[in-house]
C-alpha cells in the first residue's frame, strides 16, 4: 500500500471516529413568564411541567424574587418538551428549624397537585410566555 493511500485511510478513520450522534430527543420550546398570587408576584417557589405524553422528561422552574420563572429540564437543559402539560406550583418558606419544624405555605396546597391545580400549559416550539395567575 502506498503511503498516500494509508494516510487517506487513516484520515477517513479519524473522520468516522469524530462523527458522533448529535443531540437527539424531544422537540423543546422555551417557556418563561410570571407567577402572581392575588395580584402580587410570588417571591419563591417551583413550577413543574408534567407532560401528558409518557416518556418525556419533566421540566422545572424556580420562581425568582420578582415572580418570574424560566423552565428547564435536568437532562436536556433549557426548555420544556413540546406538547400539553399539567402544571403544579409549590411555594413555601421554612419557618425555622425549631422542634418539630414549622412550614409556611405561600399559596393554597391544591396548586401543588398535578391533578388538583387545574393549571395546564400548551408548549409550542419557539418562545412561550405563560403567566400563572393564582387565586386563594
Amino acid at each position: 500500500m502506498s503511503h498516500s493511500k494509508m494516510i487517506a485511510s487513516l484520515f477517513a478513520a479519524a473522520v468516522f471516529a469524530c462523527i458522533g450522534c448529535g443531540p437527539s430527543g424531544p422537540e423543546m420550546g422555551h417557556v418563561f413568564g410570571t407567577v402572581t398570587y392575588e395580584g402580587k408576584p410570588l417571591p419563591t417557589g417551583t413550577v413543574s411541567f408534567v407532560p401528558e405524553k409518557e416518556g418525556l422528561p419533566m421540566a422545572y422552574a424556580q420562581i425568582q424574587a420578582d415572580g418570574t420563572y424560566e423552565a428547564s429540564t435536568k437532562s436536556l437543559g433549557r426548555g420544556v418538551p413540546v406538547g400539553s402539560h399539567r402544571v403544579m406550583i409549590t411555594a413555601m418558606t421554612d419557618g425555622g428549624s425549631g422542634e418539630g419544624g414549622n412550614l409556611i405555605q405561600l399559596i393554597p396546597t391544591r396548586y401543588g397537585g398535578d391533578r388538583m391545580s387545574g393549571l395546564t400549559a400548551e408548549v409550542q416550539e419557539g418562545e412561550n410566555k405563560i403567566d400563572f395567575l393564582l387565586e386563594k
Partner: protein
Amino acid sequence: MKRSRGFTLVELLVVIAIIGVLIALLLPAVQQAREAARRMQCSNNMKQLGLALHNYHDTYGRFMSGGWDIDGIAGYSMGWVPRLFPFMEQGARWDAMESLNNNYVITRSPFRYHDQDNPIFGAAPGLWCPSSAIGDVASDQTPTSSLPYQDIQGSLHYRGCSGSIDVDYQAGSSSGREYSASGVMYPKSQTRIGDIIDGTSNTILLGETSSAEGWSVSSPTIVSGLTGLKPWVLGFYRYSSTSWLTIDHKTIQFPINYQGQFGYNLTPYASYHPGGAMFAKCDGSVSFFAETMSLDTLKYYATRKNGEVISGQ
C-alpha cells in the same frame, strides 16, 4: 530492494491510533461498569430490607408501621429502621440500644444527645446507597441545637411509601404535617399482605432517596431541614394522634428526581443512578424506575388498594 527490519513511521502511527481508539472505547465502559456494580449493590440493599420487612410480617402478621401512636410520647422518635435491626442481622445494635435504656426505641428521642463516641448511631450497613455522594453518614445535614449530632449519625437512603397524595389524604394540624394513608407504611398503619388488594407486585414498599441534588435552589433549609435526608435514628414526630411528621417514610406528590420545593412529608424519591431510582415492591422484588415514568404511574404504584391498572413498564 532490501527491506529494513524496523517499522515505518506510518505503521507505528496506525498502531498507536488503533490502540488509542480502543482505549477511548473502553474507558467510559469501565466507569459504567463501576456504576452498574454500585447500582447492583444498592438493589441488593433494598432486597435485604424488603426481605427483613417480610420476616417482620411473618412474625407480627403485618408490615412495619410508619408511626406508633403512644400517648404522651412526643418528639423525634425512632421509626421502622431500628425496629427492623433484629430481622436484618443487626440484633447486636438493637441489644446495645436496649442496654442503654429500657424500651429505648419508644422512649422519646434519647439518641439525639447521646455520647457520639458510641458507634451504635453511626453508619449501619445496607441503609445507604454506594452511588450517593452523601455517604454512609448524613453528611449533608447541619447540626442544630435540637439535633446536635445529625451530621455524623448513620445515613438512611431508603424510605417507606405512605401512598399517593391524591388518595386518602390526611391534612394534619398544620401545613407540613399532611400525609397519605393510601400506601403500605404510614402513621399507625397495620397493613397486612392481604390488605394490598392492588397486588404486591404493583405496590411500592420502599423507595430510594439518596440524592438531594436540585433541592436547595431557592430554599436552603429544604436540604438540611426536616424535608431533607435525615439519619436513620429519626423516624417520625407525633404531634397528636392525627398529626405527624414522617421522616423515614414519605408520601408521593412529586416525580422521581424532582427539582424544587416540597413539604416535610413529601420528600421525592431521587438518586445518583443515571435516570431514575430503585424501588422495592411488596412482593420483595426490586426495580429501577425511570425518572420519565409518568407521575400517574408512580402514584398508582404507591397505593395499595385503589384498583388502578398499571400498564407494562
